[in-house]
């Protein structure tokens, strides 16, 4: 009886946290959302004087906006694909093979995330300058690729390790060569978890700003970099707000996609949970 009573009590701490999080996350989103559809909003009015799509038309009429959208999308797709080609075989090797300095290499992927990122980027920018990679598309691809390494290696390694080796042996037994086993058995078995990693790397690349700005500026401007410069340099708030709302689209799409293909446990499994 006592236990049942305790379990029924309201979890005030939890509700408190939820409320704070809601205010901190939802409220700014609401404000930005409102600004994006506002034509006139002057102090001290609580709600805008005039709603409208005026600034959407103005924003979307700008050539730099469209070119940055194209840049962002092609950058994210290129980085994600390259990352798959490089990291998935590497992850398989980490999961299934023994080789010298395996653990050292495995933990070296943490290095990119273990130090202050901006300092690292500045150092890399110095090297890229020598290599004529500054302000080029492939320079930005390279820097973003480094950013995706951690979760494109670590999550798939966990996914591959959780695939039953007997399944792979059974496939060898019925006549499949090692690559066919990987393609037809291992990859589909590890599929949902790897999809999670791919999604993370796409979204992560799409929203990354520091590397994209430091290596890409001024020629290569991604959508988030453009938004930041709008917010910093434009007296009109709406430009930034409109871009920010546009930027929500890929993350919403990613979320919906994630809900469809990823069963609830996959993310946790990917992180070894």
């Amino acid at each position: 009886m006592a236990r049942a009573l305790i379990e029924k009590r309201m979890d005030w701490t939890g509700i408190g946290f939820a409320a704070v999080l809601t205010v901190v996350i939802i409220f700014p989103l609401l404000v930005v959302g409102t600004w994006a559809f506002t034509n006139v909003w002057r102090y001290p009015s609580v709600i805008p004087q005039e709603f409208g799509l005026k600034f959407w038309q103005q924003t979307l009429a700008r050539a730099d906006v469209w070119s940055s959208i194209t840049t962002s999308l092609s950058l994210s797709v290129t980085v994600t694909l390259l990352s798959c080609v490089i990291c998935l075989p590497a992850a398989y090797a980490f999961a299934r093979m023994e080789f010298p300095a395996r653990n050292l290499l495995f933990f070296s992927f943490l290095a990119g995330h273990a130090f202050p990122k901006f300092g690292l980027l500045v150092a890399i920018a110095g090297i890229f300058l020598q290599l004529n990679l500054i302000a080029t598309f492939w320079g930005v691809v390279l820097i973003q690729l480094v950013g995706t390494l951690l979760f494109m290696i670590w999550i798939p390694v966990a996914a591959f390790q959780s695939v039953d080796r007997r399944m792979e042996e059974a496939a060898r037994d019925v006549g499949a060569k090692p690559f066919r086993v990987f393609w037809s058995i291992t990859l589909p078995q590890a599929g949902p978890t790897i999809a999670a990693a791919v999604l993370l790397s796409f979204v992560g690349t799409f929203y990354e700003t520091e590397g994209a700005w430091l290596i890409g500026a001024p020629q290569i401007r991604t959508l988030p970099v453009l938004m930041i410069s709008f917010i910093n340099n434009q007296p009109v708030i709406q430009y930034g707000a409109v871009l920010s709302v546009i930027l929500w689209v890929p993350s919403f799409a990613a979320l919906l996609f994630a809900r469809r293909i990823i069963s609830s446990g996959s993310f946790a499994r990917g992180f070894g949970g």
Partner: protein
Amino acid sequence: MAVLDIQGVTKKFSTTTAVDDFTLTVADGELVCLLGPSGSGKSTLLRMIGGFETATSGLITIDGEDVTRVPPERRPTGMVFQSHALWTHMNVFNNLAFGLKLRRLPKAEIKRKVEAVLDLVGLGGYGSRATTQLSGGQQQRVALARSLVLEPKILLLDEPFASLDQHLRERLREEVRDIQQRLKITTLFVTHGQDEALALADRIVVMRDGHTEQADRPDVVYREPATPFVAGFIGSMNLVDGTIANGVFTHTGFAVPLAAADGPATLAVRPEALDIVPAAGAGMAKIHRVTDYGTHAIVDVDLPDGVRLKAMVGEARNWSAGQAIDLKPRAFAAYRYNAAIFRSLDNG
């Protein structure tokens, strides 16, 4: 159909020798059981035949063709794993069709073969099921069918029923035996269950520490175990250490006349060959407990020094705990230094 020949095969892992100079020939259509405790090397041996481990030395041939270093995908062997290892992202049909597709058979023929093998294992019409929807026994049948559909020369079974319950295990092993007889397929079966080996095998190979203790027909292995290890591993067996002097084996109060040279010896008596009678005098032993199994009863008896023996009796109610009794072994054997030195004539 095929002959499997294993000649002097050794498998060493970094510090241990799993299989030690092992030799065995499996005749065409024969079903041989590799029986032994865990760590005896039986699974390693099977995995070497399947191609999942490479022998350190020795030769494995199938129909005279050397396969010792051939990768598993090019061996004419089919393996059924303990954990069934079905591919959960494919349905039953695709699990069975995978190997056939790799062989580039026409679609219609694949369909015909898969349906035929599903009928063979009693799962006709289950093709579109997801493997995860099947029961444990059905999953193991699909795993068996996946190997059989490719018509391997040698069928390898690695403790395939270990994860199933007793009842299902018995039924499946009868089915496997029927299928094996019908297809006349040369089969090697690994198990640590002696009842499974006795029920299935044409020949049992009892393994210990990577070598053969005894290889013979099940009835011979049961009735004439070559070593005390086999005696103790197959069926239940009373093993008593003692000495032989002047044609009599003795162990504190328990004396059995047998014709063998003087010296230390181990006496082996099966419970069903150990008769007990109410004590004439003080008695050789005391009953500790009587366990009634309905069809028969097992009487645990304690010798004066505490060594416990088991005797099988027909009626539990004739005996009670604490009763003093005499022991009369009907059939027995004696071992010295790992070899049999005496067997009584009546081996029943």
